[in-house]
């Protein structure tokens, strides 16, 4: 008997580098650039407190003496305000970093809420079927005919009328997350339901039922992991949409207040100075928002193609 060398299991990192998905990532230069931009913006948002010259949310740190300063490289520029300041003496660069934090937090939480809600309802609809299924799917059908932004605006208005018109910033943030979550759940529910209908007739589910596992365990531990590919793609593309929705709500004046501005709020503030020549108040937040959304969209497009078995 010879001792055949037992092949060592490659480490997780080695397996990741060797995988198809990493190969397709390396092959696409545009995707690498997009990923780098997303990573850079994420890091800037994450470490914002150490990267800024002032806390733009703290009124005590804003001085009116510093208002309406042009960007550093122009003739009227002043240190340390790299991208200039707005009317309240808020440093635009600092405000963008903090605003991006809010945009990302609302986006990620909103998408997570939508995903949990949609996946849950999709699992229930697909696994139980019958009247529950048709009820959930009819609601989904009706909601799908309305654009998400309209639903989010309505939810926002109803919550305001129930809780009073002047909410503090953190409550507004929660309202935005809920509004976005409730506007985007349908796609997850439909996708998960479809996969569950396919998966639940397979042998492994029958085996799990046979050994007496409860439906809840079968759904979450066994069926759900097999539906995750498309969910990941939808979540990435939805993240861009959720950030757009938050920015739009804030731009329309139904989102984050001026005291705790997100990127959309900054653009709304800047819009007031469009005619007085202070272009930097709006241009840089707009640029930040556009590059964030475009990069996430590019990543989402790539992920969709990379995970699509038809294209491989």
């Amino acid at each position, binding site marked *: 008997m010879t001792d055949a060398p037992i092949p060592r299991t490659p480490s997780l990192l080695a397996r990741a580098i060797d995988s198809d998905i990493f190969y397709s990532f390396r092959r696409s230069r545009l995707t690498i650039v997009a990923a780098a931009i997303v990573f850079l913006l994420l890091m800037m948002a994450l470490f914002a407190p150490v990267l800024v010259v002032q806390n733009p949310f703290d009124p005590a740190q804003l001085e009116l003496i510093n208002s309406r300063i042009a960007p550093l490289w122009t003739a009227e520029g002043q240190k340390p305000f790299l991208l200039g300041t707005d009317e309240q003496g808020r440093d635009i660069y600092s405000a963008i970093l903090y605003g991006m934090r809010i945009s990302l937090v609302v986006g990620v939480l909103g998408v997570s809420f939508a995903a949990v809600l949609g996946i849950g309802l999709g699992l229930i609809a697909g696994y139980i079927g019958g009247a529950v299924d048709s009820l959930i799917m009819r609601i989904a059908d*009706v909601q799908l005919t*309305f654009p998400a*932004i309209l639903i989010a605006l309505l939810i*926002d*208005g109803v919550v305001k009328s129930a809780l009073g018109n002047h909410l503090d910033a953190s409550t507004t943030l929660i309202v935005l997350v809920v509004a976005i979550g409730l506007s985007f759940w349908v796609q997850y529910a439909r996708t998960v339901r479809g996969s569950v209908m396919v998966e639940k007739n397979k042998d492994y589910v029958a085996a799990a039922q046979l050994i007496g596992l409860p439906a809840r365990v079968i759904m979450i531990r066994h069926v759900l992991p097999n539906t995750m590919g498309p969910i990941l793609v939808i979540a990435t593309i939805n993240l861009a949409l959720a950030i757009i929705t938050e920015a739009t709500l804030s*731009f329309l*004046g139904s989102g984050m207040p001026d005291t705790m501005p997100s990127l959309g709020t900054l653009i709304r503030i800047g*819009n007031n100075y469009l005619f007085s020549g202070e272009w930097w108040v709006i241009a840089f937040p707009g640029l930040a928002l*556009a590059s964030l959304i475009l990069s996430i969209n590019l990543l989402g497009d790539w992920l969709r193609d990379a995970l699509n078995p038809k294209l491989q």
Partner: protein
Amino acid sequence: MLAFILRRALQSIGVMIAVGIIAFTMFRFAGDPVNQMVAIDTTPAQRAEVRASLGLDDPVPVQFARYFINAVQFKFGVSYQFRQPVSALLKERMPATLELATCATVIAMVFGILMGIYSALRKDSFFAKVLQAVSLIGISLPTFLIGILLIYLFAVTLGWLPSFGRGDVVKFGWWTTGLLTISGLKALIMPSVTLGLFQMTLIMRLVRAEMLEVLRTDYIRFARARGLTTRAIHFGHALKNTLVPVITVAGLQFGSVIAFAIITETVFQWPGMGLLFVQAVQNVDIPIMAAYLLVVSLIFVTINLIVDILYTIVDPRLRATINRPA
């Protein structure tokens, strides 16, 4: 066929009733309508009087029935901020929105189809690749940023076009139109381009994909074999089959164009229903919000119904599946 239309119409009525329940719930339970309508120094007795005159003491089903009967006659109550009937406000604002949405759809269809055909027929040319890249950016930029960019370019820097409002309008009965005056037309350009841009990129991508698909089919190869000119093949045979799904999508999208007009109307201060709705959300004017929801839903549901019925008339294959017993 008739059974299908009836069933489809019943479904639409069901959706409208569901939306009606949501609108009524908002109207009745989100905040106290009486508080919104009276002054702070109103006595409790007067409040009770207002309450009784609005019928808020009746059982909820009775109130719903009354709301429903009124809504069917387009009576949506009185706006809290303007103290005017909501239906009058909506009627005054509706022409502006419909005109804007129609112009945006026309622009989106004309340019979207032309650009789609071009990028399908010359799919390796430089300009076609530029179009693809621009369409990705067009989808990624939020509507309000595009609007602001256009205002900065054409209103602030160049001064060619007005940045807000409708310009001069001409009245026909209760309908107002900006299509007949120079200033009205100039004011219409930027808002309708902004609103139509997303639909335009959508239609362009759709036409391109459909056209590439159709060009591979056998009947096109047969047309080539018959020695028809390229022009006749592309525009006589291929384009005709491409346009059916395009018109469907454009029709279905008309509803969301009206909803997205909310954003465009805010950017350009366009005096339409969308601007009214945004102001209503900010000021918690529930009657306007509920009425807007009902009116927009009605437009959505009607368009969906018409498109579905037209589709079955146009496409005989669908008729076969409908007539087959389920």
